[in-house]
């Protein structure tokens, strides 16, 4: 996100495929579960935010979720599963192709995402369109998100956001 980042487009297919796989595994932890796996896609200290483009463009950081550590992500996963009341639903993320730059600090990865939600009655609606703007680093041979910013266009959200995005 930092404008001063000096970045080089990544063209190495192996790296690109690893990042694509990370993103697919990530959305699978939400769409297919179990949600307990979701926090472990992040580094211990991290930033996960879900911010509307409207706020973002106004320079406002307020997000519908904001977590700064794996612990906070575990809080969310646990609360969603054990301390929340909501109608069951199916979440489905559709990812576009990923643009990856090497910033020296990690890989800056951007991809479009559409998130659909299906109700218990079987109706599917578009929950939001968004962009993932991520900073990915390698830790002990595993790629993890140091930052994941979900910047969503749909700032009049048509329903509640139950699961992480």
């Amino acid at each position: 996100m930092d404008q001063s980042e000096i970045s080089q487009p990544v063209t190495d297919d192996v790296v690109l495929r690893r990042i694509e796989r990370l993103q697919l595994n990530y959305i699978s932890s939400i769409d297919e579960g179990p949600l307990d796996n979701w926090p472990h896609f992040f580094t211990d200290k991290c930033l996960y935010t879900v911010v509307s483009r409207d706020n973002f463009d106004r320079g406002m950081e307020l997000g519908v979720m904001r977590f700064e550590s794996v612990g906070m992500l575990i809080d969310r996963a646990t609360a969603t599963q054990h301390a929340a009341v909501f109608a069951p639903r199916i979440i489905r993320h559709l990812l576009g192709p990923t643009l990856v730059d090497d910033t020296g600090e990690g890989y800056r990865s951007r991809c479009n995402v559409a998130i659909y939600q299906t109700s218990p009655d079987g109706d599917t609606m578009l929950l939001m369109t968004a962009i993932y703007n991520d900073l990915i680093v390698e830790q002990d041979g595993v790629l993890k998100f140091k930052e994941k910013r979900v910047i969503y266009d749909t700032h009049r959200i048509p329903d509640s956001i139950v699961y992480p995005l």
Partner: protein
Amino acid sequence: MDGTQSSNNSETDIWSEAGTTRVPFQVYQDAEIYAQELEKIFYGSSWNYVGLECEVPNSGDFRRNFIGEREVLMIRKGDGALSVVENRCAHRGAQLCQTLSGNAGSAIMCPYHQWTYTLDGELTGMPFKRGINGKGGLNPDFDMKAHGLVALRVESLNGVVFASFDHDVPTLKEYLGPDMVKYFTRIFNGRGLRVVGYERQVIDCNWKLQMENLKDPYHAGILHLFLISFGLFRLDQESKCLVDDSKGHSVLMTNKGTEEGKEDTGGVKIAAPDFALTDHDLIQPRLEFGDNTTLSIQTLFPSIIIQAQCNTLATRQVIPKGPGSHELVWTFFGFKDDDDEMKNLRLRQANLMGSAGYVTLDDAEALEFSQVGLSGSSAGDAAVLEIGGTDCESNDHLVTESLIRGFYMKYRDIMGHGKAGA
């Protein structure tokens, strides 16, 4: 009028009794009742929240909003005062401003035929007013003064702006009454405000169900497993529920308990007992209003809620969208002089609130369950509101629905649905 007996209006018949312990399900789904609510409540003698002064700091700044289903613009004028006008051109009705906020410069111009208005809404000119070569244009006796924008009455209280379509409405302070002003100015105490961010969400239930939810301390100690599990809200906490003299406004306040004592939950099933929270900041408020209150929810008739849960402060505006839906607009705010730690707390504690909030997620879901459940009900079916008795008085406990009963006293009064409480 005296209850349903002397009623000459069929709508009054839907209330089965003089009080408000039975709320007929029609009021949540009947299109005709909804249309009357817009006219009599939102476009009538009420003060409606339109925004914060800090959202329009400079001359020409505007913020677009809704009162009922009518769009309005809150505008900062050249002299620093505020105006609120309807966002509808006096020519042929086009929407004037499309963005949620912006700067109109020194005049409002309609994009369709460029009729132009002052920031107060007075019509000042239009292209080809005199036609071309004496042909066409407006009749010379066209009364420009009579064709301005609909201008509303405006008042602001410590940076919070309200407007009314009724120019004869009592002053804002009279409308709120001294008790409500006292709790309002506990939060809005004159310190400069700043917007932390917005959230908007559509919830498919009648707007009144949303207002009821914030007047319903009973649910909060039952539904919100997250709050109960971490001691942020329990029905046995030191608390106050205040209903104003008009019965339409209310405030409820509690002081946080400890994280222990999970057994005092009145039989409510709580989250897994080994669920320990990592982020303690989420539930450790920094007291900032000179008292020990850690949760206060003020609801002002008809449709604005002022929330202070720990350090997450927000106005929640309820915008009706037909009988079965509403939009909830959260304006999270803080104070201009917040230090960095407080700025960070407000961002983090916002996890409790909003469309994905640990707390309010449950509410939005339960409200939709309500709307689904009551639709298709038969005439005569009604909600039962007898928790805490049948009156609409203030309480020093939370196991009560008296605030909701109060809301419907005022509602019946304005709607002409019999004389509530007679």
